[in-house]
């Protein structure tokens, strides 16, 4: 009577097994097809550069890119820093700007969503600032903060701030009244209702915002590092252009891509840990 969630009849269990096995096989085949198509693409690319269809001043061959990558692990030439330095500089910048955006933006959005007066107070300013693209802030940032690390982190902050606020705000606003009423009738104070209900209900949306913010932050990096830099992945790309070295540019681009993907992955791990109550179907 009480045991109505887990037990399945044997026939059903068997057919689920067969279905799962079939899906696994299918996904292995798809993986194989993907690998083959990437291999063909790389081969054609290499071939086109080698026989001179593509000028190597415009695009380097994949093997050259791999060589440059290996070289850049230890050799600071030609643009003045090893890859590790660039990565560390860029990561530092993004983590400061992005970290500040999350730490300020999420609580701000949550409170704006919960407290009407706070909402009325902050919303108008926020609505004006919101549609301005982050890179449009670069000139003002230079006037205010110079061209150092602070200015760059500020631009990244702005890029990440907006989605953090909006999603947290929306998450709280969408809290179903019945959950708040459960808290209220249990005798919860206004703050306890926020802390034990709205904040938790908003968490999945907060994480969506925090993910979007990470993407924004990371992609604003190149623009931010256009401000006089001496290291960083954005700087590396810029230098690659000045030195007419497409291999350097591509190594920089790929590094940006891979690190972005890693950060996104780590964040989604954290999300799965914190929001483990969310149903995934």
């Amino acid at each position: 009577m009480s045991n109505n969630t887990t037990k399945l009849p044997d026939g059903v269990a068997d057919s689920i097994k067969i279905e799962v096995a079939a899906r696994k096989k299918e996904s292995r085949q798809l993986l194989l097809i993907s690998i083959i198509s990437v291999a063909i693409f790389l081969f054609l690319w290499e071939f086109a550069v080698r026989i001179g269809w593509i000028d190597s001043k415009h695009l380097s061959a994949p093997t050259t890119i791999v060589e440059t990558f290996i070289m850049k692990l230890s050799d600071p030439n030609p643009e003045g820093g090893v890859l590790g330095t660039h990565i560390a500089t860029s990561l530092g910048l993004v983590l400061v700007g992005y970290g500040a955006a999350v730490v300020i933006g999420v609580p701000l959005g949550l409170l704006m969503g919960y407290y009407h007066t706070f909402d009325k107070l902050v919303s108008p300013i926020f609505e004006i600032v919101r549609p301005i693209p982050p890179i449009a802030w670069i000139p003002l940032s230079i006037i205010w903060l110079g061209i150092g690390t602070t200015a760059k982190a500020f631009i990244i902050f702005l890029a990440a701030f907006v989605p953090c606020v909006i999603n947290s705000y929306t998450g709280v606003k969408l809290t179903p009244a019945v959950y708040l009423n459960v808290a209220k009738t249990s005798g919860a104070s206004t703050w306890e209702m926020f802390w034990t209900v709205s904040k938790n209900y908003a968490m999945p949306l907060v994480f969506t915002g925090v993910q979007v913010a990470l993407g924004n932050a990371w992609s604003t990096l190149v623009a931010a590092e256009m401000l006089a830099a001496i290291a960083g992945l954005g700087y590396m790309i810029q230098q690659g252009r000045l030195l007419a070295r497409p291999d350097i540019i591509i190594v920089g681009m790929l590094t940006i891509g891979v690190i972005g993907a890693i950060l996104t992955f780590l964040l989604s791990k954290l999300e799965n840990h914190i929001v483990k109550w969310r149903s995934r179907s």
Partner: protein
Amino acid sequence: MENQEIKVQVNHLTKRFGDLLVLDDVSFNIKKGEFVCIVGPTGCGKTTFLNLLTRLIEPTEGEILIDGEPADPKKHSISFVFQEPSAFPWLTAQQNIEYGLKIKKRPAEEIAAQTEKIISLLGLEKYRHAYPHEMSVSMEQRVVIGRAFALNPDLLLMDEPYGQMDIKMRYYLEDEVVRLWKATGSTVLFITHNLEEATYLAERVLVLTNKPAKIKANIEVDLPRPRKVSDPEFIRIRKEITEMIKWW
């Protein structure tokens, strides 16, 4: 039952939403430890009445006293099982049951003991760490009912808690709620559309009229438990209530 103390006193309660009169001068008492069912047509103001009791909304006129004082969820221990599913999806079964106790800042030992008691009364041991999305609707509702009883509330309000459930699960949960009521000695106010359910559960049934709601009848159900729906006396009382509401 005669000389028991009065738990809830409803005096001339009236509620309007703008021009819409929903409750019209309703007065009655509920005794301590009593199990009262309220039946009434759809949209007559049952949920509104419970919302007034818990101060989710304010009355237009009249007052509600609990133990002689104006009802106040901060002061009185009131639990509410809402009409719609209300287990917190971010808490496990056990954490949901603990919720009210934690809000009331009961001592840790009491929270643990009370939660264990409810979990074992409801047979939820295997599911204590499950989240609502991993449960069936009826399982979730049991958690919600457990959460409500865990507070040992002075007053437990249940708003059609079994509305969504099939008949088998309904019978089972009806027995369960009676068991919890007996075990905890709470005062229960249970709203339902189902007259058989009301006759099965209640010591007293309040029949409401169409909107604006007034009390149409007050029927004592003095049957021994466990009750049998096939018992002639049971059938007689159910028919009596049915007669009261022919005009629905």
